[in-house]
């Protein structure tokens, strides 16, 4: 059922268009929202889109995961392990950066009592 969706070109199109739409939704939120927690949420959505694009570009759906087994010892039909390792590193770093940004925002709110990004901008003048 729905066999035409399993072709590699169609999968690649779905991955590119879907993750780029997700990225632009995050960019829209980053540019138009005002509260600072929503800006952090938008950044997290953009990160998720980048990870999905990075993994999904190298996938071949008829190959298997890059883990050897007693039943799967053939290396030639395994997926590429390099993007997995890169994204594995990036997810943990993204989470720690998010926590650090949130703690900066909390401390800023304690000092000035502002959460709106426009009011934060007016501090410069």
């Amino acid at each position, binding site marked *: 059922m729905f066999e035409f969706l399993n072709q590699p*070109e169609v999968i690649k199109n779905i991955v590119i*268009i879907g993750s780029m739409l997700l990225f632009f939704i995050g960019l829209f939120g980053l540019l138009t929202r005002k509260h600072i927690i929503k800006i952090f949420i938008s950044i997290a959505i953009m990160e998720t889109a980048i990870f999905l694009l990075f993994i999904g570009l190298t996938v071949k759906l008829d190959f298997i995961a890059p*883990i050897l*087994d007693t039943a799967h010892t053939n290396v030639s039909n*395994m997926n590429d392990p*390099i993007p997995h390792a890169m994204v594995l590193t990036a997810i943990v*770093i993204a989470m720690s950066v998010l926590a650090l940004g949130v*703690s900066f925002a909390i*401390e800023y709110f304690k000092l000035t009592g502002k959460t709106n990004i426009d009011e934060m901008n007016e501090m410069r003048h």
Partner: protein
Amino acid sequence: MNRRKISIKRELPTATLSGFVLSALLILTILNILLQNMPHKIETAGDLLLKLNTTEGVANAVTTVVVYFRGFDTLGEISVLFIASMGIGLMLRSNTKCNIKSESNFMLQTASKILFPVILLFGTYVMIYGHLSPGGGFQGGVIIASGVLLLLISDKAFEVPHSVIVALETFAGVSYVLIGLIGLLVLDTFLGNFLPHDISQMGMLLSGGIIPLIYIIVGIKVGSEMSMIVQNLIKRSDDV
């Protein structure tokens, strides 16, 4: 009723939105054309690494890439985590640590005491078996931190002592560098796999050489840092 006149241009930034959509479509089209014309079969670095992986005797290829071929990057990554944890501790530091506001219900208090050893055991499993199944040091560390989080939100007086965290982090960081230096002495490469590892025993626990050892160390470090981040976020007194 005096209805205020609404300018449609002020309410809807149509020019901005249409420019946004147009640029998105343009980028999508260009990216699509570029990626459709890629050559069908190219020899990537991953294929070479997969072939190398069979000589190392480790089942999970991602583990080999993270610990063995990119071990120095992993050291940098846990340093970044340590710096982030230190920054959060400096930012949210306050002299009066407050507890959580209200007592949780009896069911959560009982179940957290039952579930915490289970979560700890599962985190240790994910850590140690990282080279045979999906998992590894980062995931195991974050699972252990989740167990600490469960105790923190259910028990009113629970607190991880600061000296324990300091001791664990110091031990983990020093022993990671020491294992790397021993590999440098024995095999002339930083983090060389100096313990015996048979290819014929692939699939057993001890077939990974130093990789389970490295993952236990990374798990201890990540778990203690994440626990400290969580505790600093929860126990901060909010007297503005």
